[in-house]
């Protein structure tokens, strides 16, 4: 009990020392909980009623795996933050030892302290996140145009359990590390811990200048290449399959440039500011400058990593949003019918239909038989880059069935003469312009392309294909007389009555029917699937971005505090020679401001360039760029909020550390 009291008093007394640690823990728990609960089955099932359970399971599994990865990152962050506090307290622990307290007692104090902090931050984190996750959920679904019937308050014990277990493991690691540290240190080094000197290594100015110019050169080259039309076309021609080899030098140069930039920045800043005597010789600017440069000099590797991490977060959030938009805008198009069923076995079609009793779902259904034959491929008709893409088989149909389907979509039927064919084209690489012939030859007969349609789609399940080509022949043409042919029988229909209820009924029926030889694809399934894809992309990108920003800020904040502790003596000297509080605080504010904003500034330039490039691809691919201001604003607000929070926490705590004596 005595230990508990002592620990509790320690935590209370040094709660300001723990401020950054606390903020980080609570934010980490919140982010973890919110994303896990929003992607949990309990929640998604209520939101996506009638959606395919498989895709919901997929997104949940994805977030779970991602969370494992993220908990490793957070684990390291917590250990890092803890080691800061441990360093601060070495002297105190040394005094405990000197007073005759046993190491195992100290371990027990640290254990209880970690437990108190762990339980508090878990409690507050989860407590805050439960209402927040509801609000966040509504926001996300509203932004993504996912209609929610009613606001379901979903609380998942499972997710809460998961959060507690994951963070419990992290705290356990911290406890073990602390106990290990206590058992290892010698009293003398604990007591004298604060007297450690910081190493100074500001490179000569011309070396810094040369490295700086090299860094700017590398980054300039990278930006140039990324922004050039040439690179864009090269990558774009390749379409979805971006050859990694092409991007590798850009990536390597960009990363190297960033590292060199931060390596030389300290020296460069000193050289530049020195050139402006007005700035250099004003107030305690030269002290401020040396503080910043020595800090960058000490931490340039981690700052570079943080800068890259922030760039990735900004890009991933923006691109994630844009892709999400793309999926959203595209869904619902090109699905001609509510349902398309594909019969996997030709022989059992009648039997299956009888069993299904189609009449209860629809008044009229449209059969469609399609054929493909080996050797008849896209490149026969189109200017098709067969090296880059697989040369797909053309799909053949008969005109009577096709006309019925077109009529159902309100499209004029097409009359074909005996030697004429109709093409129905959907996609960007199969257009009337890319046709290389107006004739088509099969089984010794030559057919003329009489008409090309770009409207009307034949099957709902074709929605999944990027480019599809339908070749419609007169009814008398036979395709099943050759050797290598594929035949597929499908039947499409629209629901009669309440589509929502019908869909539920049909899906339900299919779920129970394991032996069925029918592959079911409904419009609703496609839309839900796309929304889930969109949700997955948005969630994953947001999740990663928030965590990366969080980690970056926490590390920057802790580095500042470490530095404040190490600089204590310098501020004492300043005070003695007559520097007042106002000057000191202003310098502190400038130091912290620059240290926080510098990586963000460079990262903004990086991601701006990257986003211009991504935007071009998106415009080309989807005829629209990254937009949705609402999403952008909410993302920016979130990042800004975390920034401000850490900035002020750091400033206040630094002031406290430096004003101690």
């Amino acid at each position: 009990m005595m230990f508990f009291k002592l620990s509790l008093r320690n935590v209370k007394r040094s709660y300001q020392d723990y401020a950054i640690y606390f903020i980080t823990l609570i934010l980490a728990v919140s982010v973890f909980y919110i994303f896990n609960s929003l992607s949990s089955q309990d929640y998604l099932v209520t939101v996506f009623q009638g959606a395919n359970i498989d895709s919901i399971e997929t997104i949940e599994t994805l977030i779970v795996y991602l969370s494992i990865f993220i908990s490793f990152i957070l684990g390291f962050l917590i250990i890092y933050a803890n080691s800061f506090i441990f360093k601060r307290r070495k002297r105190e622990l040394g005094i405990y030892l000197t007073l005759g307290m046993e190491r195992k007692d100290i371990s027990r104090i640290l254990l209880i302290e970690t437990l108190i902090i762990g339980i508090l931050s878990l409690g507050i984190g989860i407590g805050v996140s439960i209402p927040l996750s509801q609000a966040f959920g509504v926001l996300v679904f509203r932004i993504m145009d996912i209609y929610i019937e009613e606001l379901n308050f979903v609380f998942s014990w499972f997710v809460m359990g998961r959060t507690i277990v994951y963070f419990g493991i992290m705290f356990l690691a911290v406890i073990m590390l602390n106990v290990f540290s206590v058992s290892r240190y010698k009293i003398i080094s604990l007591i004298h811990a604060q007297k450690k000197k910081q190493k100074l290594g500001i490179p000569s100015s011309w070396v810094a200048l040369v490295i700086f110019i090299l860094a700017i050169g590398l980054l300039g080259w990278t930006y140039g290449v990324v922004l050039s039309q040439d690179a864009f076309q090269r990558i774009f021609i390749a379409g979805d399959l971006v050859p990694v080899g092409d991007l590798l030098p850009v990536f390597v140069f960009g990363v190297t440039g960033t590292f060199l930039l931060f390596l030389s920045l300290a020296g460069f800043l000193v050289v530049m500011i020195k050139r402006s005597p007005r700035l250099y010789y004003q107030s305690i600017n030269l002290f401020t400058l040396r503080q910043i440069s020595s800090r960058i000099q000490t931490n340039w590797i981690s700052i570079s990593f943080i800068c890259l991490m922030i760039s990735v977060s900004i890009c991933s959030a923006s691109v994630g949003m844009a892709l999400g938009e793309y999926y959203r805008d595209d869904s619902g198009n090109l699905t001609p019918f509510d349902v398309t069923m594909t019969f996997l076995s030709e022989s059992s079609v009648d039997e299956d239909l009888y069993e299904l009793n189609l009449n209860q779902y629809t008044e009229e259904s449209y059969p469609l038989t399609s054929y493909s034959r080996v050797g008849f491929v896209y490149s026969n008709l189109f200017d098709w880059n067969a090296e880059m893409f697989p040369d797909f088989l053309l799909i053949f149909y008969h005109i009577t069935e096709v006309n019925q389907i077109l009529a159902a979509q309100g499209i004029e039927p097409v009359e074909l003469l005996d030697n004429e064919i109709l093409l129905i084209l959907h996609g960007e690489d199969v257009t009337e312009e890319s046709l290389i012939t107006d004739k088509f030859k099969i089984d010794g007969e030559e057919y003329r392309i009489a008409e090309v349609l770009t409207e009307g789609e034949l099957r709902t399940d074709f929605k999944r294909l990027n480019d599809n080509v339908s070749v419609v022949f007169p009814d008398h043409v036979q395709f099943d007389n050759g050797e290598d042919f594929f035949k597929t029988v499908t039947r499409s229909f629209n629901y009669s009555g309440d589509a929502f209820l019908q869909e539920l009924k049909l899906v339900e029926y299919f779920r129970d029917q394991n032996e069925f030889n029918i592959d079911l694809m409904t419009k609703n399934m496609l839309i839900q699937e796309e929304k889930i894809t969109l949700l997955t992309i948005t969630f994953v990108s947001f999740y990663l971005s928030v965590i990366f920003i969080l980690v970056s800020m926490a590390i920057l904040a802790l580095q500042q505090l470490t530095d404040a502790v190490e600089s204590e003596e310098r501020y004492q000297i300043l005070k003695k020679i007559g520097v007042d509080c106002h000057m000191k605080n202003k310098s502190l504010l400038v130091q912290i401001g620059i240290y926080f904003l510098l990586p963000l500034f460079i990262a903004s330039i990086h991601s701006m360039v990257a986003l211009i490039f991504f935007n071009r691809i998106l415009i080309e691919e989807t005829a629209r760029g990254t937009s949705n201001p609402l999403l952008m604003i909410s993302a920016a607000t979130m990042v800004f909020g975390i920034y401000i929070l850490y900035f002020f926490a750091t400033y206040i705590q630094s002031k406290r550390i430096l004003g101690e004596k």
Partner: protein
Amino acid sequence: MKPVLKVETIQKYYGNDHNLTKAVNNISFQVQEGEFVGIMGASGSGKTTLLNCIATIDRVTAGNIYINGKDITALKEKQLAKFRREELGFIFQDFNLLDTLTVRENIALGLTILGKNPKFIKQRVEEVAKMLEIENCLEKYPSQISGGENQRTASARAIAGDPTLVLADEPTGALDSKSARIFMERLTLMNQELGSTILMVTHDTFSASYANRILFIKDGRIFSELIKGEQESRKAFFERIIEVVTLLGGDQNDVF
């Protein structure tokens, strides 16, 4: 000659009614412009407390201290910082230089906080560095130069702003004898050529012998005063100091 520093019956007490320590007990003295005054006394005699009170780092219990006619005991915390940087120059035993700044920057810092213009700062830094013979280490960091050079840098910083009074607290305490000699010679030069008024606290007889006048403090009171004669050599003055120190009693350990 006008008095730069006027100390009037100051007292500094520590502790409570039952256990009162009179660190400074009714001390009064004056320092004229251009004087180099040493304050000697054993550890615990109250000399450092006295200096801290004059340096505005500590506050007196009673009495008044006038620097350049201004009563510093009446100043508020905010005004004190301004007063310190404008009127006082400090030289400490452990140098108190900023390790991240070059020698040039350390000296300049004393001027930038006064809001001097850049051109003047550059010129003045060169000037005082030359006077203290550290012009060759201007671009070096404190960790790259010797203790003596560090202390001369601190002195350069202290006098750069042309303060009314330079306060030195055991300036040779961390120096070897050769560095101490060089340092004291430079300090004397500062006094003689730049006319800096210097008040130095020390318990080192050798360093004290460079001053014009010495106040001896014992148990918080002024015990004795020695004034160097016009024609008197430093060595002769040194002998006289030794005598007083012997009289002070039991303090030989501090001298030798």
